[in-house]
C-alpha cells in the first residue's frame, strides 16, 4: 500500500465523514426537529387573521339608511418599542382628544400591546398617519354609524364595542345583522406582504343581512319633533307617539322622549334608551272606554242612543265615590263616550259583567304582549276576574286597575279602524342578503277579529263625536274626519301608594280619516306640569302630527274631494 493509496482512503474517509455530518444534520432538521421547525416557519410565513363581514344595513321603508357599518381606525401602542412615552403621549393627546397623562400611563405599562383609542374618526387616523410615531399603530375595525343621530334611536337600539347588538332592533335581529366571522391563514413574504391569496372568493366573509323597516323616516321625524316640543312645553317627564297603519299593523313611527343619540351611548343609562312605548305600562284612563264601548255595542248591552243617567257627577260604588269632571244627568251612550263620563263607563262595565269585560280586554290584546319584533316588550297588567275586588269592574271601565303599554292601546284602537280586526304590529318588513336579494318578506298578520264591522263603524261614529263635540276637540284636523278618545289618568305616588293629585298621564288615541283610516296614532305625555288633561296636552299633538303626515302621504282633504266632485 503506497502513500498515494493511503491518501485516497483518507480523502474518502473525509468525504464520508462530511456526508455523514450532512446526513446527520438533515435527519435532525427533517425528522427529529421537523414538527418544531415547521411550526416556526409557519409562524414566520403565515398570518392568521379573523375576518368579519360587515354588519347589515338598516333602512326605512323608502331605502333611507338608518344604520350602517363603516371601517374606522383603532389606535394601539407597543410600549416595548417606544423610545419616549412622554413625547409620544404629547403628540397623541390632541389627535385622540385624550388627556396626555392618561395616554402616557398606558404607554408606560410593561406590555407588548395596549389599546389607546378604539373606533375613532377617520380624520383622526389620517392625522396619526402623518405623525408616524414608532411604536404606535393602527388597525381598521367596523364601527356602527347611525347617520340620522337620535332619529328612531329607541327602535334601532345600538351595538357594543365588540359589534354585538345590545338594544332595540340591533339586539332583536342580531342573528340576521351580524356579519360572518372567519379565520383565514394568509402567506406572507420576508417583507410581510401577503402572497398567494388562495381561494379569494371563499376568504371574504359574508356581510350581515340588511333590514328594511316599516318606519317612514319623514313621519318618524314629524312625530319626534312634535313630541319633543310637547314634552318641553308641558315640562313633562317623558312621552311617546306611535303611528300605525291600521290595515296592516305596520308601524310608521315610534317616537320616545327623552331622545338619545345611539352614536354616543357610553355616558347614558338604561333609563334613557329604554323604549317606553313598549316597556312602560300606565293606567290608560278614559282611552279604555273605547274598549268598554266596543264590548257594550258588540254585546248589544248598549246602543248609541241608549240613555244613561250621569248621577249628577257623583256615584258611590263599594264605599268609594267616583266623580265625573262635570255634573251630568241623562245622556245617550254616545254622549257618555264623547263627554268621557266615568259614571257612565262604570255603569256600562257593570252591565257587561266581569267575564265578558275580561274576555273583551283579552281579545283586544291587553295583559299580553303584542309580539312586536322589538325586545323588552311587557304584557301589561290585567288581573283575572278571580282577583278583582268589588270596585274593579267600575275601575277597569274607567281605565284604572289595569296597566297597558302605548303599543297595546294603539293596536286595540287600530282594530276599530280596521273594521274590528286586530293586527300584529311589526317594524321589519323585509330581510335581504348582501346582494340585495330578498330572504324574507314579513307580511301583515291578522291576530283575530275582536268585534263585527258594524260595531266598529258605529263606534267610529261615536269617536268622531269625541273630536267634534267632546273632550278631544283639539285633535280635530281641518278637512279630515278624526275619530279618537282622550285619556287622563292619575299616577300612583310611589311614596304614599295612593293616587297622586299632581302626577298624571295625558293621552289621546285615534285614527284619521275616520271613514277610510290611513293612520292610527297614540300620543302619551307622562307627568305633564300644569293642566294635564289628555284633551289639552295630547290631543293638539295628535292634530299637529296628523295634519303634517296626511299632507306628506298625499291624503286628500274631505272638502277638496267635495270641490273636485262638484267640478266634474
Amino acid at each position: 500500500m503506497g502513500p498515494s493509496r493511503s491518501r485516497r482512503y483518507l480523502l474518502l474517509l473525509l468525504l464520508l465523514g462530511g456526508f455523514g455530518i450532512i446526513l446527520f444534520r438533515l435527519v435532525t432538521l427533517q425528522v427529529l426537529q421537523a414538527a418544531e421547525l415547521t411550526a416556526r416557519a409557519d409562524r414566520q410565513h403565515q398570518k392568521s387573521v379573523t375576518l368579519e363581514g360587515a354588519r347589515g344595513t338598516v333602512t326605512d321603508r323608502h331605502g333611507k339608511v338608518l344604520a350602517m357599518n363603516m371601517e374606522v381606525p383603532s389606535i394601539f401602542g407597543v410600549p416595548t418599542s417606544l423610545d419616549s412615552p412622554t413625547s409620544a403621549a404629547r403628540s397623541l393627546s390632541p389627535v385622540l382628544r385624550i388627556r396626555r397623562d392618561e395616554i402616557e400611563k398606558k404607554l408606560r405599562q410593561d406590555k407588548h400591546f395596549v389599546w389607546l383609542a378604539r373606533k375613532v374618526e377617520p380624520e383622526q387616523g389620517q392625522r396619526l398617519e402623518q405623525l408616524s410615531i414608532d411604536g404606535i399603530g393602527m388597525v381598521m375595525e367596523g364601527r356602527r354609524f347611525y347617520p340620522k343621530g337620535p332619529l328612531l334611536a329607541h327602535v334601532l337600539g345600538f351595538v357594543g364595542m365588540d359589534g354585538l347588538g345590545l338594544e332595540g332592533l340591533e339586539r332583536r335581529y342580531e342573528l340576521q345583522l351580524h356579519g360572518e366571522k372567519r379565520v383565514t391563514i394568509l402567506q406572507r413574504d420576508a417583507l410581510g406582504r401577503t402572497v398567494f391569496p388562495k381561494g379569494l372568493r371563499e376568504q371574504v366573509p359574508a356581510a350581515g343581512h340588511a333590514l328594511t323597516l316599516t318606519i317612514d323616516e319623514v313621519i318618524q321625524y314629524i312625530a319626534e319633533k312634535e313630541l319633543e316640543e310637547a314634552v318641553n312645553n308641558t315640562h313633562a317627564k317623558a312621552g311617546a307617539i306611535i303611528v300605525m297603519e291600521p290595515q296592516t299593523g305596520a308601524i310608521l313611527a315610534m317616537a320616545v322622549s327623552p331622545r338619545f343619540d345611539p352614536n354616543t351611548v357610553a355616558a347614558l343609562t338604561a333609563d334613557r334608551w329604554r323604549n317606553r312605548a313598549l316597556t312602560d305600562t300606565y293606567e290608560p284612563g278614559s282611552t279604555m272606554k273605547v274598549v268598554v264601548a266596543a264590548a257594550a255595542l258588540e254585546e248589544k248591552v248598549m246602543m248609541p242612543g241608549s240613555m244613561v243617567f250621569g248621577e249628577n257627577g257623583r256615584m258611590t260604588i263599594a264605599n268609594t265615590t267616583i266623580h265625573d269632571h262635570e255634573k251630568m244627568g241623562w245622556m245617550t251612550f254616545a254622549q257618555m263616550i264623547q263627554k268621557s263620563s266615568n259614571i257612565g263607563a262604570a255603569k256600562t262595565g257593570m252591565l257587561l259583567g266581569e267575564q265578558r269585560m275580561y274576555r273583551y280586554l283579552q281579545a283586544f290584546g291587553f295583559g299580553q304582549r303584542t309580539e312586536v319584533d322589538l325586545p323588552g316588550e311587557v304584557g301589561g297588567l290585567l288581573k283575572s276576574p278571580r282577583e278583582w275586588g268589588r270596585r274593579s269592574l267600575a275601575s277597569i271601565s274607567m281605565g284604572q286597575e289595569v296597566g297597558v303599554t302605548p303599543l297595546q292601546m294603539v293596536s286595540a284602537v287600530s282594530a276599530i279602524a280596521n273594521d274590528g280586526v286586530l293586527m300584529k304590529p311589526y317594524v321589519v318588513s323585509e330581510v335581504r342578503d348582501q346582494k340585495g336579494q330578498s330572504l324574507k318578506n314579513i307580511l301583515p298578520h291578522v291576530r283575530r277579529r275582536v268585534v263585527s264591522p258594524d260595531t266598529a263603524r258605529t263606534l267610529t261614529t261615536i269617536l268622531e263625536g269625541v273630536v267634534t263635540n267632546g273632550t278631544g276637540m283639539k285633535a280635530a284636523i281641518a278637512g279630515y274626519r278624526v275619530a279618537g278618545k282622550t285619556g287622563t289618568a292619575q299616577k300612583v305616588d310611589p311614596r304614599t301608594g295612593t293616587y297622586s293629585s299632581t302626577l298624571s298621564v295625558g293621552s289621546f288615541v285615534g285614527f284619521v280619516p275616520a271613514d277610510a283610516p290611513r293612520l292610527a296614532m297614540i300620543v302619551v305625555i307622562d307627568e305633564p306640569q300644569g293642566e294635564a288633561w289628555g284633551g289639552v296636552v295630547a290631543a293638539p299633538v295628535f292634530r299637529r302630527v296628523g295634519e303634517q303626515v296626511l299632507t306628506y302621504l298625499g291624503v286628500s282633504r274631505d272638502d277638496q274631494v267635495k270641490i273636485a266632485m262638484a267640478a266634474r
Partner: protein
Amino acid sequence: MKVITFIAGLCLVFLFVWERVDIVRLGYHVERLKTQKVLLERERDQLQVKFSTLTAPERIAKVATDKLGLVPPQQGQVFIVHPQPVVPVLATPPVEQVRIARSMPIGRGDK
C-alpha cells in the same frame, strides 16, 4: 437525442420556475387590487354615511327654516290634486300626486 431531451427537460424546469414566479407576481397584484378595493369600499361607506347624515330630515328642516327662511305650509295652503288620465293609453301610468301651495308667503315665492 440526448441533447434534445436535455434541452426539453431544461425548458420544462424553466417553465415551472417561470410559472411559480408569475403566480407570486400575480399574487402581489391581486393583493394590491384587494387593498384598493377595500379602500374604495371604505370611501364609499364614508360617503354613504355623509350623504345619509346630510339628508337627515332634522338637518333639512333646520336649513330650510334657519338658512332659507322657509315656513311650513299653514292650513288650507296645500292642495292635493289627483289627476285623472284623460286619454286612455295602453299602459296605465302611475297616478302622481301634485302638491300646490295656494298662497305662497309674500316676497319669497318669486325667488
